[in-house]
């Protein structure tokens, strides 16, 4: 039971970055943009926050940090970084109508490189022996939980043991689901992704919707990167540590059949799969088996992909124009 109790919060913690990425990509894909640059965007979102808080922490020195600034500076830096990445993607694919797959891959190359380059540079600036940057003071603000959470036993452990960004992620996912289902802008966004020509003929500004959805999606995804560093990893940045979570987030979008509310539980499930290997006993003799268990999330994703494609229901299809750029005078 204690194993399980500790498993749930860790699974949720692992799931939150996926949730941010997945929600962001759902909004993006609803506009017809398949953004394979999300892994890069999440790196940029993370490193931008790290840069912001690094300089803030250093400028404060040994003095005490202002809690509001300690949170707002990294959050705003992160949003700015992923905002710029979103603008770049939109400029290339929406304005210049470049191939979305290639643009996305290039953004991932660039974004991961950007993250590791500045991560590496900050590590050099901080003159430490270890190849990491530790922003433990900032992290303390990010991972602060409600003061009474610890007193509530298993309930507190499972539901209240997370920093504010985790709850933000859930709220954003719920809000996204409501937005897409109930609001007029959500209806328009769905129309843009399904049939931009129709949306255009109906007076919907396709370009604006694509830009807004994609840039917003990137900013949400970027927060996932920030959460990972500041909360899950306790403020420790090391290069490549974020790994392939961005790609898993994209795969999750298909798993959730483009529904942000399903994304919440799906993310936690995948978060659980991601760390399952830690909970399967192998004994010291067979550490290699752990490497096989790390395969589980990818194998499960593949199986999910196959099963959803086998079912092939009309309601579960991707937005009809996904991956295609729109040009009004195409004849």
């Amino acid at each position: 039971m204690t194993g399980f109790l500790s498993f749930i919060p860790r699974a949720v913690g692992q799931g939150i970055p996926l949730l941010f990425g997945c929600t962001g990509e759902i909004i993006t894909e609803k506009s017809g943009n398949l953004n394979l640059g999300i892994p890069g965007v999440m790196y940029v979102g993370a490193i931008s926050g790290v840069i912001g808080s690094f300089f803030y922490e250093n400028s404060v020195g040994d003095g005490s940090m202002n809690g509001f600034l300690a949170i707002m500076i990294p959050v705003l830096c992160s949003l700015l970084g992923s905002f710029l990445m979103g603008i770049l993607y939109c400029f290339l694919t929406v304005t210049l109508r470049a191939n979305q797959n290639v643009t996305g891959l290039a953004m991932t190359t660039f974004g991961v490189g950007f993250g590791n380059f500045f991560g590496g540079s900050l590590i050099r600036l901080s003159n430490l022996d270890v190849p990491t940057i530790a922003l433990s003071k900032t992290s303390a603000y990010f991972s602060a939980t409600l003061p009474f959470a610890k007193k509530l036993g298993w309930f507190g452990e499972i539901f209240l043991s997370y920093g504010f960004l985790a709850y933000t992620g859930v709220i954003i996912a719920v809000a996204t689901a409501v937005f897409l289902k109930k609001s007029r802008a959500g209806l328009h966004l769905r129309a843009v992704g399904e049939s931009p020509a129709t949306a255009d003929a109906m007076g919907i500004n396709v370009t604006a919707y694509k830009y807004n959805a994609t840039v917003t999606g990137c900013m949400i995804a970027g927060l996932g990167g920030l959460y990972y560093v500041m909360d899950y990893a306790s403020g420790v940045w090391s290069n490549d540590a974020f790994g392939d979570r961005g790609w898993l987030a994209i795969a999750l979008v298909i798993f959730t059949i483009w529904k942000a509310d399903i994304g919440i539980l799906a993310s936690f499930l995948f978060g659980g799969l991601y760390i399952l290997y830690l909970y399967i006993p192998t004994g010291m003799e067979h550490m290699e088996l752990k490497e096989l268990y790390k395969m589980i999330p990818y194998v499960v994703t593949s199986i999910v992909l196959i099963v959803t494609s086998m079912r092939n229901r009309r309601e579960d299809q991707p937005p009809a124009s996904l991956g295609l750029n729109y040009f009004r005078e195409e004849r």
Partner: protein
Amino acid sequence: MTDSNAAVSMRNITKNFGKGGYANDHVSLDIYKGEILSLLGENGSGKTTLMNMLSGIYYPDSGEIYIGSKQVSINSPKDAYDLGIGMVHQHFKLVDVLSAAENIVLGLSGKLDMKNARETIQKICDRYGFDVDLDKKIYNMSVSEKQTVEIVKVLYRGADILILDEPTAVLTPQETKKLFEVMRNMKDDGKALVIITHKLDEVMEISDRVAILRRGEFIGTLITKNTDPQEMTDMMVGHRVELNIERPEPLDPKPRLKISGLNITNEEGLQKIRDVDLSINSGEILGIAGISGCGQKELLEAIAGLQKVDSGSIIYIDDDGTEKELVGMDPVKIKNLGVSLSFVPEDRLGMGLVGNMDLSDNMMLRSFREGSGVFTDRKEPHKRAEKIVKQLHVDTPGIETPVRRLSGGNIQKILVGRELYQRPKVLMTAYVVRGLDINSSYTIYDLIVFQKLAGTAVIFVGEDLDVLLQISDRVAVLCDGHINGVLDGRKATKSEVGLLMTSLKEGTRDGE
């Protein structure tokens, strides 16, 4: 300069797509309230382009547009709606996965209040006599239902200038009648209506005035009641044309294909063909009539080996009387059986040809398997392409031009030319002249009749009943996947066919 009574005045509108020649060359046109105007012209004469500039899809290279007496600039469909202009396009602008009501309110601003919107929509429907299920998803709708949604959508936005682009092309005669009633109701309500068409009888029936375009140029306007079809045709085409298709008697007809008990369910699980029995003879043209989507595609594809069949048989009978079962075969197996079968599908660039490949590569679609060895023979198809270009007068910059760059008529000549090159025993064509100008259409008709004389069994799926009744020896009428009757092409009338297209005969549904 402008007529101040006009609802819309277009002056000297010019648009050039840079593909040789103007789509519109200094066109001036007035549209009045309480009037139905027909915009008449051949395919490719620039009718749709002109109206697209009113509805904000295209922007004119030069010229002015006045609403009332005020000059306006229409940069987007939204601008058009703001000015009270709404257009129902030939290809419906609807989102398949949304419901009728959601489609109707799409693009408007303000808080989304579906309850309120539905009440308003219902009022419009009652006022003009529309019948539509607001919760139905578009992908479950018939063509005529979709068209109704389109018109309601335009009215919901308060448009008082309505443009309908070839609205009857996809409707049965009965549905057309209903549409015309609604159009008259709207006209009586003071709306200005423009109907784009190339069907003369419709012009005569529905419109007050007719404006004629030819090759992008404005030819003139006529008061409908003072003119007749021949005068309009002359203006439309520019020179007198004989609107007759030759129909020789079949020579020595022998059974060639025998279809019996055929049932087909498509990928979405809908039954598209029900218990079809049909025989086709050599040397004859069998026309197939029916509203679009009632099983024509599935029938032809089943014969061509492209469509899975639930039950039934399709027997090919050779000259010497040997019978060959085609069900369960794919196109390659059918060819290997020695059955020479050609198929001109409805979707030319999506199925019959590859738009991005050049003429010679498109010829290779049929010939690339020829010859042993791993490499393709590229000389033969090149020669074939050259021959077809020469014989059918295909207007192309060269053999190396991607076919999508050619005009519709030339694309179709390439496709038909390639299919006939195989000297087929069975030729199937679907909507073979859709979108073609009159000259190209007649070239194609001549080719088909020539094949018939050569002893080919021709299955001709068409939408224009006039043509169907002029070219076919027999006409089979499909309705909801059922053969509702096979009529003698020389005796049948349009209304007979139209009736069979819509109403199931007594007793045909027994036992279901």
